[in-house]
């Protein structure tokens, strides 16, 4: 009771106004973010409200979406398998070797490549095939995915390795381990779950990219690219249904990653 009287009225009002401002903005953000998923849901189920919906309804043609998702995961799997060792090696080079100009440059390049716009990757791949000769669409697709994925994974891995206390390494070296032994017997076992989560989150992010693949008119089904083309052609219901597959897949991957590395949420 006494405490309540401590604040003058104008301060109480100011306090309430600030609280209201924060809550209003948070609600606005919640509405915006929920409406993104809600919009996809609404568009997907909207044909169900139309009583005359027959075989022509976009909702019924579910199989092309699943097939596109399967193709997408397959391409992504190949890209991840190729990018993974390079990313791992690059992260080790950045974190486990003496800091020289070379390490500084590699770290800078990884940072820049991790933030490079997807459309730049597309035009570089397009231009590259003119220099070395025509490549198949599959190769270009997978190469673009690798270029997108590699620096992001390398940066994520490097951050994880930085998180391992230095004295673990020092102890390993003190008892006569080589660098390779230290990496495989200390660093990897300690960070395995986090690394796995990082790979999964990298895959989840790459699962949604369109720009690096946009310029290749290939006939290969990559789910986000299909969604883009469907939206541009005005097939919103089908695009929303495909988006729902994509969101659900990303949610599953995220949940698995969060289970592996619970520090993400905490």
């Amino acid at each position: 009771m006494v405490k309540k009287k401590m604040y003058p009225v104008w301060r109480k009002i100011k306090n309430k106004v600030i609280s209201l401002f924060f809550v209003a903005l948070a609600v606005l953000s919640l509405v915006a973010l929920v409406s993104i998923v809600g919009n996809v849901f609404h568009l997907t189920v909207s044909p169900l409200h139309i009583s005359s919906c027959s075989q022509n309804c976009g909702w019924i043609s579910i199989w092309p979406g699943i097939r596109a998702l399967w193709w997408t995961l397959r391409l992504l799997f190949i890209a991840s398998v190729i990018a993974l060792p390079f990313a791992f090696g690059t992260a080790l080079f950045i974190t486990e070797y003496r800091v020289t100009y070379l390490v500084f440059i590699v770290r800078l390049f990884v940072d820049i490549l991790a933030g490079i716009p997807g459309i730049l990757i597309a035009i570089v791949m397009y231009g590259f095939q003119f220099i070395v000769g025509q490549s198949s669409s599959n190769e270009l697709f997978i190469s673009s995915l690798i270029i997108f994925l590699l620096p992001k994974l390398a940066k994520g891995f490097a951050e994880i390795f930085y998180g391992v206390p230095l004295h673990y390494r020092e102890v390993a070296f003190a008892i006569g381990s080589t660098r390779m032994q230290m990496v495989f017997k200390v660093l990897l076992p300690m960070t395995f779950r986090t690394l796995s989560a990082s790979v999964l989150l990298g895959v989840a992010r790459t699962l949604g990219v369109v720009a690096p693949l946009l310029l290749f008119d290939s006939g290969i089904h990559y789910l986000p690219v299909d969604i883009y083309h469907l939206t541009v052609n005005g097939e919103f219901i089908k695009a929303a249904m495909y988006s729902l597959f994509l969101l659900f897949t990303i949610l599953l991957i995220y949940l698995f990653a969060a289970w592996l590395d619970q520090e993400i949420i905490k």
Partner: protein
Amino acid sequence: MVKQQRNNVGEMVFTTLVFGSAASVILLMGLIIVVLLVHALPAILRFGLAVLWTNQWLPIDQVFGMWPFIVGTVISSGIGVLFAAVVGTATAIVIVRIRLKWLRQLSAALVQWLSLIPSVVFGLWGIKFVAPILLQMLRSAPISAVSGSAEADGILLAGLTLAAMLLPTIVTVTRETLISVPPSIVDGALALGATLNEATLSIVIPYARRGIFSAILLALGRALGETIAVVMVIGSQPQLAYTLFTKTDTLTSVIATQWNHTQSVYGQSVLFEAGLLLFVLTFAFYTIARMYVPRSVAAARLQLW
């Protein structure tokens, strides 16, 4: 002794592979620079730097000006980052203040999941959710007379779509920064008679300003490079944006939209020049950003940068 030698061979192979991986990053960077330069060179030699400030884009007449796209990029990113920074920071403050642990973690997880949502879904949201609302507002307000446009597509819609896209990034990184503020200094402020809001505004936010700034910087980086969500909502017209509802293009969206429509001799080369400009901007931006952005575990793990 034999074991030691075997280890040395293994160690050598391991070191070679690690150095080879690192070399692949340098090669990749070299490849990007060489390819962009080789293909942009004809346009650079023909038009010089004038393309940067030329106002018109008329490929049939061999007139290529990137100024409308540079302006489009700056304005749409500015709108997006401004909205996202204000709303995102407030949201992060509210999430951090939630007392129920499960609700706090659930909201954090929801935001993190949303940060992984592909840009194409945001584009779809912009077209089917925000555009009708904007159109409704345009029709009911006298603003349409000012803009002279009866369509929602344009730079404002692109900015709002970008804002929603950047929101999870800003909330995630800012939340991480706010959590790391020592509770003792907040308790100290409260003990001296400050309200919780006063403590937030005068103690917590100034303490976490570097983290908040880095969140905004990361969001700006994403906004500058975003292509698909922007292509879907900006209207794609190669003209300077005089109003918030002018259909225009950004540096990234012009490459995506004009790529298959360039029949002129220098058309594609100019687009490579736009790519080169984008690359130079990205290079400069992230070189500066890495000096100011403190290591963010959330950003690294969620591959936000």
